[in-house]
């Protein structure tokens, strides 16, 4: 692969634009989706169909007083929101958007993505801890226990995909699934893998909802119990960065799900594969995230942990064993 300066610059600017547009307008999608699900209209006064709403919110958040309360840990309090954004944008560098579009085709891209996801969790911990607010600390502790609990089944299901594809490179995994939906990892009619791979997909999707702190698993910002969770003390763009980080995490989660299970840029019918199919897939997944959030009520923290430790981890272990056995048999 050629490594010219222009290529790196182009990808840098392109990924930043992609991240910025998504972080801003997914908020609009969420508000509009929530409104439609609740039989409301949603934002409609700011621009056509409320499309200028993110600009208004951004202007307001940027021009609001950036308040650093007394008794907070100054440096960590300021660094934590930035730390929520950076890993999400960085992990976009290794995502293959199509066969030819992808900033870096690293050998260990799956590992890199999960390492960066853990840094995103640390930003919540630091933000909550530096605030010096008891609700924020409770929220940070909850968030860490949730992330720990859900990373285990998530990685176990990723191992099944890696076993089948024989590669830990996202691009290789996507290339391995080309040629129609029956080649995708979620169905995988080629060998006996269709027996277990849909279970992997369901476990992975539940875990990615939990990893991105979305309802029904948004224990970190349960406003009926914890005011606003780890961002209770954040005003202005500190709060804005946390929100944008959350949306970017959703985008990365959807990209990862589409690449690992839904064939990446592959067309379901074996025609015109390309970046448009990837975009269709990730936005369908993101819509599912929004749909789940506004349909299910928030669960409780001990039920959340029980779901992971008592159900998802045993199931994903068994799933891994059966998949490995199937690979040996067929």
């Amino acid at each position, binding site marked *: 692969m050629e490594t010219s300066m222009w290529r790196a610059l182009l990808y840098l600017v392109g990924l930043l634009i992609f991240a910025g547009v998504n972080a801003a307008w997914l908020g609009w999608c969420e*508000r509009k989706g929530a*409104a439609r699900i*609740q*039989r*409301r*209209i*949603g*934002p*409609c*006064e*700011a621009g056509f169909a*409320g499309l*200028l*709403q993110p*600009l*208004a*919110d*951004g*202007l*307001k958040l940027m*021009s*609001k*007083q*950036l*308040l650093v309360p007394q008794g907070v840990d100054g440096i960590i309090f300021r660094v934590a929101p930035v730390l929520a954004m950076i890993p999400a944008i960085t992990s976009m560098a290794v995502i293959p958007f199509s066969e030819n579009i992808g900033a870096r085709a690293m050998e260990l891209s799956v590992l890199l993505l999960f390492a960066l996801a853990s840094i995103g969790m640390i930003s919540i911990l630091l933000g909550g801890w530096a605030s010096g607010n008891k609700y924020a600390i409770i929220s940070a502790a909850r968030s860490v226990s949730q992330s720990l609990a859900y990373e285990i089944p998530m990685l176990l299901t990723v191992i099944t995909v890696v076993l089948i594809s024989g590669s830990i490179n996202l691009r290789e995994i996507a290339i391995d699934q080309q040629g129609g939906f029956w080649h995708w990892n979620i169905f995988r009619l080629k060998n006996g893998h269709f027996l277990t791979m849909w279970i992997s997909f369901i476990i992975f999707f539940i875990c990615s909802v939990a990893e991105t702190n979305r309802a029904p698993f948004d224990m970190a910002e349960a*406003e009926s119990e914890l*005011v*606003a969770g780890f*961002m*209770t*003390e*954040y*005003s*202005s763009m500190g*709060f804005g960065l946390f929100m944008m980080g959350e949306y970017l995490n959703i985008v990365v989660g959807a990209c990862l799900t589409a690449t690992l299970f839904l064939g990446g840029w592959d067309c379901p019918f074996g025609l015109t594969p390309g970046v448009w199919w990837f975009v269709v897939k990730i936005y369908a997944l993101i819509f599912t995230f929004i749909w789940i959030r506004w349909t299910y009520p928030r669960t409780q923290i001990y039920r959340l942990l029980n779901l992971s430790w008592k159900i998802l981890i045993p199931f994903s272990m068994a799933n891994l064993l059966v998949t490995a056995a199937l690979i040996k048999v067929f």
Partner: protein
Amino acid sequence: MGEENVPASIVQFAQLDKLLNLGRANSLWPMTFGLACCAIEMMCTGGSRFDISRFGAEVFRPSPRQSDVMIVAGTINKKLELAVKTLYDQMPEPKWVIAMGNCAISGGPFKVKGNYNVVEGADKLFPVDVYIPGCPPRPEALLEGIITLEEKITGKRRWPRVHPG
């Protein structure tokens, strides 16, 4: 309560200020709190029939640090006085207050001789931008209050004013 003296800044950015005010007026995030029965009407305004989200104001933030407008919806009792005052002080600038309902305006039916437990009006505690009369005001009145607050921020009214009669 004395007048609040805000010194004008030395350098003026007229167009930028207009743009920022337009942004602020279109995303007035209220604080999630209700004091009495007016809060029921406030919740109804967020519901599907009246839909406060059309004006970008449906993001009820639970933390005062992230909210722009405080809708004082209901009677302020003496016991709650300190809590409400603290919430106002915790909001970062720029911030606005809407006094919703007769109790928040003046104490309403509780402004009687020998009143011992009700604060007679939210403006005894902090400056109020918009007063919405009614006991309780209908959701349309709260929407009108939001539009009036937008008019106060930008200097322009969103829709032409409707005169009764």
